[in-house]
């Protein structure tokens, strides 16, 4: 029953006596008797028993180390160097709270300041917060912020966006009564500039992703920004930061706000969480004032020595309450620190190389997969590739699974117009033999189906 965590269990009577209470019950005398509850819960177990039990349950999972997997669509199997986990598990980081007492929290504060700084270099903007929950909620917050900044109510996004992220966005803006407008893709699988122009009037913000949901580089991203700015809308760019060693910083391409997923660095997939949303803006007082989330700043201590502290808190809920820029309190600090450690280890050479490897691996994958399927969109892919089959993809999926291969993400339920398509993804972790195994399997499956 966890006695090992309860040092004072042995001193209950002694302590009660010292403060003049007769019993523990007396300490709960303010709780109405009629609602006191006899809990129907299992008794506690020893650490060993729980260790065994959790191991048994977890063994029912099959990891991507145990079968070649081509899943992506917003979560990717990247390799995280061992030292990252090792460092964030140090208890001074792991068991600390939000650094309210700056003087004894300089380590976490500096680490988060470095996270902000590294992201700033990546995305090409000056202002970065200490993290949102994930890319999706960062998008929601970006839409709300755009509305606050522009006092407009419409947010324009590409139709080719992860269903996951769409749903989060819609929920986030519902209370504010914002309207989300979805703009179609063109024949290249990229945003249709004409349709964008038709919808941009009165927009608070225009959003685009790099790469987009189909894994394609949006080649007209600069033009998208110009269209947004022409309508006095904020230009919001969502970015997979692992591409930023090879693709220009969104800040240099005109972005006012950059969001994205920081957990692609330094953090394993963990079935989708925890993650950490990137949130960055231009160094513009108007934008900073409307920014959500915690921000760490550099300052001095009483001796004039460099020190770090949480700053610009007057935007936040604990001070502004109902008028805060967001309700966020706990964020994803440790996830952000992990990302920072990984980024600092990669450095400019590593980030460039990472981008190139993924780009080349994706190109190789496209070459191979086109042996057995159609690629509806021509363009430069990064990680995700939209693949179209003649055989129903759910059938293919079943057969692949039997062969111990996990295929891609079935997009038909969300985009019926794309037919029997799936998003297949590769990264730097994908091995040649995995692709080989997949192609062989697909050939077999398709041949069978054609019989």
């Amino acid at each position, binding site marked *: 029953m966890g006695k090992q965590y309860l040092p004072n269990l042995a001193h209950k009577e002694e302590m009660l006596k010292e403060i003049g209470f007769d019993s523990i019950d007396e300490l709960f005398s303010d709780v109405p008797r009629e609602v006191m509850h006899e809990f129907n819960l299992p008794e506690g177990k020893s650490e060993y028993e729980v260790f065994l039990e959790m191991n048994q349950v977890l063994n029912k999972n099959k990891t991507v180390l145990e079968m070649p997997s081509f899943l992506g669509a917003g979560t990717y199997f990247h390799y995280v160097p061992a030292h990252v986990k090792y*460092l964030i598990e140090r208890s001074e980081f792991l068991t600390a709270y939000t650094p309210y007492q700056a003087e004894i929290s300089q380590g976490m504060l500096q680490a988060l300041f470095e996270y902000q700084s590294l992201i700033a270099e990546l995305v090409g903007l000056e202002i970065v917060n200490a993290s949102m929950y994930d890319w999706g909620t960062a998008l929601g917050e970006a839409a709300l912020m755009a509305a606050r900044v522009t006092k407009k109510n419409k947010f324009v996004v590409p139709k080719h966006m992860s269903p996951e992220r769409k749903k989060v966005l819609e929920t986030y803006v519902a209370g504010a009564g914002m309207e989300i407008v979805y703009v179609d893709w063109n024949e290249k699988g990229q945003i249709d500039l004409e349709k964008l122009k038709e919808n941009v009037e009165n927009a608070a913000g225009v959003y685009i992703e790099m790469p987009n949901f189909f894994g394609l580089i949006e080649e007209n991203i600069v033009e998208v920004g110009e269209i947004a700015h022409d309508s006095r809308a904020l230009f919001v760019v969502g970015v997979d930061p692992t591409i930023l060693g090879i693709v220009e910083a969104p800040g240099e391409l005109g972005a006012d706000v950059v969001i994205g997923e920081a957990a692609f660095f330094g953090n394993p997939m963990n079935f989708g969480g925890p993650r950490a949303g990137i949130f960055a803006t231009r160094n513009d007082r108007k934008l900073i004032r409307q920014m959500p989330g915690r921000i760490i*700043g550099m300052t001095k201590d009483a001796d004039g020595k460099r020190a770090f*502290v949480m700053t610009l808190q007057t935007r936040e809920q604990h001070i502004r309450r109902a008028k805060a820029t967001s309700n966020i309190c706990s964020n994803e600090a440790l996830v952000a620190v992990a990302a920072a450690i990984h980024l600092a280890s990669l450095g400019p050479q590593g980030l460039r190389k990472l981008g190139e490897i993924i780009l080349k691996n994706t190109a190789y994958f496209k070459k191979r997969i086109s042996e057995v399927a159609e690629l509806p969109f021509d363009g430069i892919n990064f990680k995700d590739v939209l693949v179209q089959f003649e055989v129903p993809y759910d059938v293919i999926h079943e057969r692949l699974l039997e062969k111990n291969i996990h295929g891609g993400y079935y997009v038909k339920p969300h985009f019926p117009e794309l037919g029997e398509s799936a998003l297949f993804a590769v990264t730097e972790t994908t091995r040649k033999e995995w692709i080989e195994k997949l192609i062989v399997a697909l050939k077999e499956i398709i041949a069978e189906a054609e019989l």
Partner: protein
Amino acid sequence: WDEPLIFELSKPGRIGFSLPEPIEDVEVDIPEKLKRKKLELPELSEPEVVRHYTRLSEMNYGVDSGMYPLGSCTMKYNPKINEEIAGHPKVAFIHPYQDERTVQGALQIMWELEQWLKEITGMDRFTLQPAAGANGEFTGVMIIRAYHLDRGETQRNEIIVPDSAHGTNPASAAMAGFKVIEIPSNEQGMVDLEALENAVSERTAGLMLTNPNTLGIFEEDILEIAKIVHKAGGLLYYDGANLNGILGKVRPGDMGFDVIHVNLHKTFSTPHGGGGPGAGPVGVKDFLKDYLPVPVVEYDEENNRYYLNYDLPKSIGKVKEFYGNFAVLVRALTYLKIMGKNGLKAVSEIAVLNANYLTQKLKGTRGYALPHKELRKHEVVFSAEPMKKETGVKALDVAKRLLDHGLHAPTIYFPLIVHEALMIEPTETVTKEDLDYYVEVLKKISEEAYSNPEVVKSAPHNTAVRRVDDVLAAKRPVITWRMYKQLKEKGEIDI
């Protein structure tokens, strides 16, 4: 000590990474205008990176470093077995879109955790999706919103919160589009029933309440409160930040709450990580379960199969990508299985004993007042108002002086209804010796305040850095190395 910024440690050419070669050296051309130009990341080898962050960690204080009685934060010990299980490759290396048959273990963990939370809180259904308490609150008020809209009660656009509430409560309500109505507490530190009666109307969507409240006081009139709100057609929202004070004794669901969130990183021992990741599951009564975010985890007993159910037509949608902070959920379930029924009950009993022990020991010390009721649950709020008036020493100074003794300060200046508040939550994992020492130091600081106030006002003296200038930080923000360099170039900064 002083540790430079990682950028300042950079040396051109250093390599801290190792990456596999591409599968094939395919040529791919990024359009020139989209090619990356400048990329000013630091260059370090792995040993340097490790040393840097090891040193930074040593400049930080965690629960394993000493007592950390931040009120409303429940900084209890984080069992290491949680970390071991959550670090298992079977947790780390699964993709959220994997076929259900390949993640039965993960789904079972989520399902089991939900069963525990249901019985612990007295709710009927949970979503594990929210990433933190505030994300949970937003989920909860969105559910309340959806419920009223669904019933056509579009006029219900007000959420009532007591003046002692966490800032997240009004902020979450506002984010969901509600107007926030604040009501005062009575002299006992509890909800003023009359004020509540006056506040409710046909516009009332709900009341958000923390119980025990942020003063650590159990809202004795909770059943009456519930009656008033329900009678007005509103729903009752429970902010689970203080669940540790009643764990295993009484359930929000039985007190009349319709929607609640719990903080796994507070009550259920998952580590706070310097501010996150947390997890804020939201529980609802049966009549609200159709509004939960999608997906929910279901168990098909017949086929012994767990699956994700997206088929909730009235769902509010999603409040976060995927299914929540899964690795945090794993930790919480591990903890629950170890504690079990009696363990959880012992948690609140000892947490409450510790808080009252500290209250009684500190009570009467010169300079610290104890407003409101004496009997507390898991935390207590003292006021340094007398000290400030008599010596000029503020709650902030007391907090900083505590640091000099190797202790973490309490939460200060919250709740707002207590001036110069010192909000102390020891939790159940501290020792009697810790409590005695904390009281001893607070008494010593009181003596200092009355004999030598300057030493308190200029505290801390023994920490890595002296008192940090947060006014300067806000006045002349330096948020990133990029900004720092710009200011440096212009000669506008000297740090």
